[in-house]
């Protein structure tokens, strides 16, 4: 794929097709060609870009302008105005408020291009993260004040439930429900734990939040303490994040000095203190019960559940464990209301998602966009296209526990439910973009190597399953595979999912399942023809036999 100046998308859901989207597409093609813009502008039809009374829709990026309903006769004018002269064809603009679903975010685009919607990273890069005063000037701790002066604990939980916020650590569990569970459990002592043990390869969003806006996480933890009835919090940061640790320690000291942390915060009855605990290099400690074990000074091995941490967590007490990105959403929701939050994203996954774009694209980095954006949009707009004119083959989402998303799914909205329906997973928000030179066997081997190294070895399905799957993939990559290996890989994938104790083992088999589902012919070529189609695998076992 090459880098284009603009990208034009035409909706092609059944309604749009019925109303002439196909003709619009053809006219666009002709007009773009007649202006000799075909090398500068990419044109595609996309399946579902949200319901609208304005179908068929035409969306032009990077400005993210929505036109609709567009008739074939309008196309000439649209191309001349927008694509040739670079002016927005105002008369054709879609009435944005009628749009629902994930594209309503375009309404709120900022002045900078490409448009992003920043909620959790709103202040990162704008405020001085080492200054509590600067944070307070930018709304910092105003949500906490509101909560402590105007709201009852159950009101806070109700707002969260209404907002529809779902955990951003990967599983997507409704945050309000989790808070309610902990709040309802009777106990003389409860804990709030912030999970900042971000170790998914490819994910560094939590690091940027902690480094760029550390107070937003502290504020949310204090609010959480008030809502669930806890007076003590732990922030578990991974050991490698030196700057984030420094910033958090400094932020806690500043907040304590201002009386925002400690006894009777803002003159209320709520008291709260936060302790920082550093990880020591273990991926598995991102699993909430393993994290709790690690805080208690033990090996980070996940506990058997139930009981869940909401009733039996840290030191056996009810414990609320939330991811950094989840917590960073709390204060904006309280400040602006649950209805405001639901304006972003999709109905089942409201809000934004921070993605890290890495791999074979022209521009890597971090973006915050509404839930429901598609891979195609991310790739073209924010990744600025594939590097060196390469072809997009697949994306690996959510670090190592995510899925391999083949190019055919690049128009599926990225939200928890749409991805689950397509049989893939969004994970924690990493998007590793791979080009046609990437070998799926080699990639799966690297992923399984990660899992076999990071498996805590407590339960045998994971300890043995990841090791065996790695060996099989290694054999295939050396040209020593047999067709039975494919069945075995499928079997290991199933066993890992069904029998492992925790999320690590359960998701460890998903790369196996994905390569067999989407790239089976490529794997078979390694076995039957003893050839690696991309030339990545050494296949040395085979050549040495000859």
């Amino acid at each position, binding site marked *: 794929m090459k880098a284009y100046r603009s990208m034009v998308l035409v909706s092609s859901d059944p309604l749009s097709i019925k109303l002439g989207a196909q003709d619009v597409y053809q006219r666009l093609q002709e007009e773009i060609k007649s202006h000799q813009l075909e090398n500068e502008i990419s044109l595609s039809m996309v399946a579902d870009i949200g319901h609208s009374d304005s179908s068929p829709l035409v969306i032009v990026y990077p400005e993210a302008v929505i036109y609709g309903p567009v008739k074939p006769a309008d196309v000439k004018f649209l191309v001349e105005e927008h694509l040739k002269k670079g002016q927005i064809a105002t008369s054709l603009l879609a009435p944005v408020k009628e749009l629902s679903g994930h594209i309503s975010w375009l309404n709120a685009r900022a002045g900078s291009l490409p448009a992003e919607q920043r909620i959790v990273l709103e202040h990162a890069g704008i405020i001085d993260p080492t200054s509590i005063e600067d944070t307070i000037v930018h709304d910092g701790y105003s949500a906490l004040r509101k909560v402590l002066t105007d709201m009852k604990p159950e009101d806070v939980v109700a707002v969260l439930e209404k907002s529809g916020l779902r955990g951003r650590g990967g599983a997507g569990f409704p945050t309000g429900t989790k808070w309610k569970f902990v709040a309802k459990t009777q106990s003389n002592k409860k804990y709030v734990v912030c999970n900042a043990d*971000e*170790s*998914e*390869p*490819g*994910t*560094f969003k939590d*690091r940027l939040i902690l480094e760029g806006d550390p107070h937003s996480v502290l504020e949310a933890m204090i609010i959480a303490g008030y809502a669930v009835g806890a007076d003590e919090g732990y922030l578990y940061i*991974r*050991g*490698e*994040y*030196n700057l984030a640790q420094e910033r958090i320690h400094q932020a806690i000291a500043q907040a304590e000095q201002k009386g925002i942390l400690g006894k009777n915060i803002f003159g209320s009855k709520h008291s709260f203190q936060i302790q920082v*605990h*550093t*990880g*020591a*290099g*273990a*991926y598995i400690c991102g699993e909430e019960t393993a994290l709790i074990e*690690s*805080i*208690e*000074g*033990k*090996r*980070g091995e996940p506990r058997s559940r139930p009981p869940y941490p909401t009733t039996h967590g840290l030191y056996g007490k009810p414990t609320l464990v939330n991811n950094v990105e989840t917590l960073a959403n709390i204060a904006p929701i309280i400040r602006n209301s649950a209805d405001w939050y639901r304006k972003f994203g999709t109905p089942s996954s409201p809000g934004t998602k921070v993605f*890290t*774009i*890495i*791999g*074979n694209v022209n521009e*890597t*980095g*971090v973006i915050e966009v509404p839930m429901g954006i598609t891979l195609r949009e991310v790739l073209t707009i924010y990744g600025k296209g594939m590097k060196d004119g390469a072809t997009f083959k697949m994306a*690996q989402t959510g*670090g*190592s526990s995510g899925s391999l998303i083949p190019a055919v799914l690049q128009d599926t909205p990225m939200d928890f439910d749409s991805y689950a329906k397509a049989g893939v997973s969004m994970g924690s928000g*990493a998007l*590793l973009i*791979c080009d046609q030179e*990437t070998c799926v066997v*080699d*990639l799966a081997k*690297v*992923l399984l*190597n*990660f899992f076999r*190294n*990071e498996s*805590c070895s407590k339960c045998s399905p994971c300890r043995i399953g990841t090791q065996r799957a790695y060996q099989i993939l290694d054999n295939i990559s050396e040209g020593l595979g047999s067709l039975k290996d494919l069945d075995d890989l499928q079997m290991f994938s199933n066993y890992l999912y069904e029998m492992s104790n925790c999320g690590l083992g359960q998701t460890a088999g998903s790369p196996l399942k994905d390569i067999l589902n989407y790239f089976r012919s490529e794997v078979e070529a390694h076995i039957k023809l003893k050839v690696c189609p991309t030339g*990545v695998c050494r296949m040395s076992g085979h050549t040495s036999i000859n």
Partner: protein
Amino acid sequence: MTRVKEKGITVKQAVKDALEFYGEKSEELVPILLKVNKELGFLPNEALKTISVKLRVPQSQLYSVATFYKMLFTKEMGRHVVKFCESAPCHVAGGRQVWSALKDELKLQPGATSPDGKWTLITVSCLGICALGPVMMVDEDVYGNLTAESLPSIFARYK
């Protein structure tokens, strides 16, 4: 114990400092081990024994914790520890080529220490700076966007 001597701090002192800083509490075990590891470069048996007595944690349990976490070492390392990320994001971005050049450059296999005690090469799962892949750390310094050609000049900075 070249490194211990070099830093001018005895095992006894390092353990004492860590226990004073975090308190003699078993729930502070991981931070205590981390601090001692940082001071000495690894966790000598002597250190584990003392900590075991002070925290009233059996030595076997202490050892099981010390070997669980990747940032804790129970064997003495070289003067400089090279940590190379072997995860998918770095691998896809050219890490494969850099890794084989790295092994040639240091003439080491993963997990090994050079005979002169200068280098130890280990692989790690992720360093959290994936947009800059391939990535490695030499001691506390991070290097990103690595190429096979850039390696000799980086290693030349370390004595």
